[in-house]
Structures are given as structure tokens and as C-alpha cells.
């Protein structure tokens, strides 16, 4: 049976977390389908990179090593992946739903006319019957993802076209070494066979790594703190909750004025307006100016020691209690209920 391929992102000599997670997932899918797991690493100075990749149970690693292949630009990486996929005909190809994978994946899928599903939250093998066409398919990749603003969960399949391509965000899958001594085959690619000069049309002038700008507006989950959080120290706990849930931290004006957090996080009439799937209001009384910036949230949890706080009237869940105690427990029980 044809192989499963994972595109590995490599930056500064290190294989990205998301790629390690996908190698782990790829290995378990390969076991189920009884096929090989293969990986691709494209970049520069990749000598020895196999030591980071084989232990995930990779049977073949294809390496394209050339000074011009780092930092990542679309066309050279796409040309290599497209060329290799045409030769190797993988049945499944996985990439990180990162700024690289979400740039590369669609380009590759378009060139190969294969289906791609973005931001999958689950990948499962299963069958499918197309009653209209009278066809039965076995061992398809179910690509499961939220859609429509998170209001539905869709299972997508690619019955006819190969590879079946999917991207997955970092942190969705769990990484796990298969065997530190796992022996795979290293295949060094002749880069000039896949890439031509015209591929290097985009030139990276400068790059600097920095902390992302705060993006509360686009966050699916907002953990917001008010004056009732009590201190800058306690606000760190909100950051921890936001991080485990994959959200952002917001604040009421009172919390910003008290110096608990930065102004960019302010939600409300004079701050940002958010409409997340879930808004967790911690120690926020809920003045009308604040509510104007968040009352269209799909679900609202209010944590407050005042049972009569105005925000409770628009909340779906009201937890009467101390913010620090409740938030700590939410982190603890979220972790114990996932993975």
C-alpha cells in the first residue's frame, strides 16, 4: 500500500513541534493501514536531521538540502513536494496548519488536483459507501474539523483523489517517540531536479521573530479579567487558562486602569469588540460599556463572588466564587479531561 507522508518544518536545526505531532499521528495511521511512514525535510544545513525524525517511526526520510531553501518560500518547497508526490504517490499527506503548512498545502493540492482539508481536529480511518455511484471505499482518511464558525463539525473525505491531504494545528495531536533506535532510510534528493531558478521569485529581505501581536478579536475563546481579579499576579493565572484552552486574555477597563494588564487587551465600548465562541468573565461586574464589547459571545461563563453582578444576567453559566480558586480548578479539570 502507498505510504503516508508528513512534511516536516525545520527551523534553526529543529523539527517543529507540530511536525513531531504529525509524525506520531502518521505512524499510528500507517500501522493501521499497514503501510510505510515517510517524511520530507526541506531547508539548509540539514545534516543529521534524521536523528530527530526517525525515532517517530519514519521508514523513509527525503531530505532536500540547499542554502536557497531556507528560510521557507512557497515555490521552491512546493516544487519539491509536488515533484516528490508525483513520483511516490502517497495515499495520505499531512502538514502543520501553521503559516508554512497553510501556505504550502493549498499550492500542492491545486497542482496535484487532490483534496485538502484545513485545520483538522481529528483524523480517523474509515470506509464510505457512495450509494449514488454504487461504489464502496475502504480505508479512507476521515478529516474531521469544525466549520461554519465552529457551529458544526464536518467529516470530510477524498474518495477518488490522492494524496488525501490534511493540515492540523499545533497541540491538537500528541507527540510520542516510537523507538529511539528506529532505523529508517535516508534519501537525499537532487534539488536541481525539482527546483528551477524561476521558483526563487520571492525574496526574503528580513525576518524577525517576535511575540505575536495580541489578537483578541480573532480568538475563539476569551478569558477576560476585571478589577475583581485583584492583582497583576492573579492575571497570570488567566493567561494560563487562555493558553490551555487556545484562547486570548482580555480585560475590562477597570482592570486596565488598575495596571493589571496592558491596554491592548481592553474589551468594551472603548476597547475591542469580541464575539468568541466562549467568553469567560473573571471578576468582571459587567457595566454596560463592557457588555457592549462582548454580549454577542456565543457562550458566557461568569466567575464572580457577587451573585448580583450585572454580567450574570447575560451569562450562560454563573459560578459564584473566588476567581483564583475557580480558574485554577478549570485548568486542572480541563487538563484531566483531555488527552
Amino acid at each position: 500500500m502507498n505510504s503516508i507522508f508528513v512534511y516536516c518544518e525545520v527551523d534553526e536545526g529543529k523539527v517543529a513541534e507540530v511536525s513531531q505531532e504529525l509524525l506520531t499521528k502518521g505512524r499510528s495511521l500507517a500501522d493501521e493501514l499497514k503501510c510505510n511512514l515517510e517524511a520530507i525535510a526541506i531547508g539548509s544545513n540539514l545534516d543529521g536531521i534524521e536523528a530527530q525524525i526517525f525515532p517517530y517511526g519514519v521508514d523513509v526520510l527525503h531530505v532536500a538540502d540547499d542554502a536557497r531553501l531556507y528560510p521557507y518560500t512557497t515555490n521552491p518547497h512546493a516544487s519539491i513536494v509536488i515533484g516528490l508526490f508525483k513520483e511516490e504517490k502517497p495515499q495520505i499527506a499531512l502538514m502543520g496548519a501553521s503559516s508554512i503548512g497553510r501556505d504550502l498545502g493549498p499550492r500542492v493540492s491545486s497542482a496535484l488536483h487532490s483534496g485538502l482539508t484545513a485545520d483538522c481536529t481529528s483524523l480517523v480511518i474509515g470506509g464510505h459507501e457512495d450509494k449514488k455511484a454504487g461504489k464502496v471505499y475502504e480505508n479512507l482518511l476521515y478529516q474531521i474539523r469544525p466549520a461554519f464558525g465552529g457551529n458544526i463539525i464536518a467529516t470530510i473525505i477524498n474518495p477518488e483523489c490522492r494524496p488525501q491531504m490534511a493540515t492540523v494545528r499545533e497541540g491538537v495531536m500528541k507527540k510520542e517517540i516510537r523507538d529511539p533506535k528506529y532505523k529508517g532510510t535516508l534519501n537525499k534528493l537532487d534539488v536541481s531536479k525539482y527546483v528551477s531558478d524561476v521558483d526563487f521569485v520571492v525574496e526574503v529581505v528580513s525576518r524577525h521573530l517576535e511575540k505575536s501581536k495580541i489578537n483578541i478579536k480573532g480568538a475563539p475563546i476569551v478569558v477576560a479579567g476585571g478589577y475583581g481579579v485583584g492583582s497583576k499576579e492573579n492575571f497570570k493565572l488567566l493567561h494560563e487558562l487562555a493558553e490551555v484552552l487556545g484562547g486570548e486574555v482580555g480585560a475590562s477597563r477597570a482592570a486596565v486602569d488598575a495596571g493589571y494588564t496592558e491596554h491592548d487587551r481592553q474589551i468594551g465600548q472603548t476597547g475591542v469588540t469580541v464575539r468568541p465562541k466562549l467568553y469567560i468573565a473573571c471578576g468582571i461586574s459587567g457595566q454596560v460599556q463592557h457588555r457592549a464589547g462582548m454580549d454577542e459571545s456565543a457562550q458566557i461563563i461568569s466567575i464572580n463572588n457577587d451573585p448580583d453582578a450585572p454580567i450574570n444576567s447575560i451569562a450562560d453559566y454563573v459560578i459564584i466564587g473566588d476567581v483564583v480558586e475557580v480558574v485554577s480548578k478549570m485548568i486542572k479539570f480541563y487538563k484531566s479531561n483531555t488527552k
Partner: protein
Amino acid sequence: MKGLKIIVLAKQVPDTRNVGKDAMKADGTVNRAALPAIFNPEDLNALEQALEIKDQIPGTTVTILTMGPSRASEIIREGLYRGADDGVLLTDRAFAGSDTLATSYAISQAIRKIGEYDMIVAGRQAIDGDTAQVGPQVAEKLGLPQITYAEKVVAESDGKIKVTRRLENGVEDVTCPLPVLVTVTSSAPDCRTRNAKLIMKYKHALSVSETQNTSEDYIQLCNDRPYLTIREFTVNDIDTDASQLGLTGSPTKVKNIESIVLQAKEAKKMTPSDDEIDNLMKELIASHVIG
């Protein structure tokens, strides 16, 4: 520097961010009719980048291209009110059921029909699908380089553009000769608001099929003022291979849809006991709100 021909790809989408309690039907499925149709937010960021280049380089034209049902002409008018020069509505039942690949095929063929362009600008992704695929796929089909996650696009005097890209762990500046396709992310500047004079100028702008339901006086008005007619392409106006269109041309199929049932708005009062918080987290995970 000579003016550029810019095509902005835009989509009319249901406002999924604004899912109120009436947006779900009793059976838990999405009530699309209750969701307002809006200009996809990142496509507005893209339009702004195009308009800024138009401000900077005289003679630049901005054309909005959208694929959708006939009501999608609303967003072309919206774009005209904000400073776009004209628009094309790509509409046909043959496009129904398209996945991102079939969509990008139809759009790329429409762009070939429009002909000349220096730059294609689109939002990074649409909020009804969040896939971020159509931009790069259109670029591939047209053989153009692509620059995704753009926050700032500047036309340089040497015929190149310089783009600041906002990546997950930092920013990157790249240059690229024209023509090129750029997708713009939400951290780019918001789109300018409607211009009162442009509203007056374009409020009677109608697509070809919308014009057919109007009076003769109106048709006369459109004849006198050609800018009031929004161009419309059907499948017959563009050169296509039917096997690549709509559901047939879509490699991905939806096997199953599970709706997330939202509960009625009635606050559930809880105490901070271990059991209650544990149950709350389980409930939120089970309903896919978190996790």
C-alpha cells in the same frame, strides 16, 4: 510609476461570528437565513491594501471579483462605496457545491477572462470555512507567485512589491516582482468606511440580472452611465472544463455534518466545588466549545 491593475477577490459570507440564539434551529442545525450576509472581514482588509496602492499610484484601478449567488452583488456595491472602480459577479448554478479547489478553478478562469492584471489581492481566509486555501490555489492555477499572511503591501518603484507578512512567531519582509497574488490577514489595517459621494454615485449600480427586473427608465439610466452596470459572468462567459466545476470538480466530499446544539439562554448557577467545575469542563468539551 504607472498605475496598477488590481483585482480584489471577495466573498459574501454568513456572519458566523455573530451567531445569536436564533441562529440555531430547534433541531440544532444552523439557520442560515437568520445570519446576516456580510463582506468577508479579511477581504475588506485586502480591499484596503488595494485602495492604499490606488491612493499612492495614480491611474491604479481596483476591480472586485466575487463568486456567489446573485445577491453577492451587494458586496460589489459595498466595495464601490469604499473606493473600488468596478466589479465582476461570477454566478452560475454550475458552481454550486464547489470545494476550495473547484472554487479556485472557476475564479482563476474568470480572472483569465478579465485579462490584464498586475496584482490579485484576497483575504487570507473566509469566516464560513476558515480554510485559507482559495488564494494559494488561484495563484497556482494562474502560475503566479503567492505571498500569504500579508499585513502591509507597498508597491516599489522598481516594479516589485514589498510585503510585510505576519507569521505565527514573528514578521517577515519579502519582495516579489509583479504579477503576484497576495492574501491579507486580519491584523492589517481595517478598511476605510464608505464615502458619501461614492454612495451617491453607485447606489443604483446593479448586476446585469438585477437590471432585468427594473423599469425602462432604469435601463436607460444604466445605458447613460455605464459604471452603474456590474459585470456578470456565468459559466458560459468563461472558458471551463465542466469536469472541474461544482460538486463534480471537488475532490473533497462532506461525509457527515454534526451540528453543535446551543442551549437556551438561562444561566446555570454553580458553586466552585470540584465536581461542578469538572462537570462544566466535560460539558464544554463534549459540546466542542473547547478542546
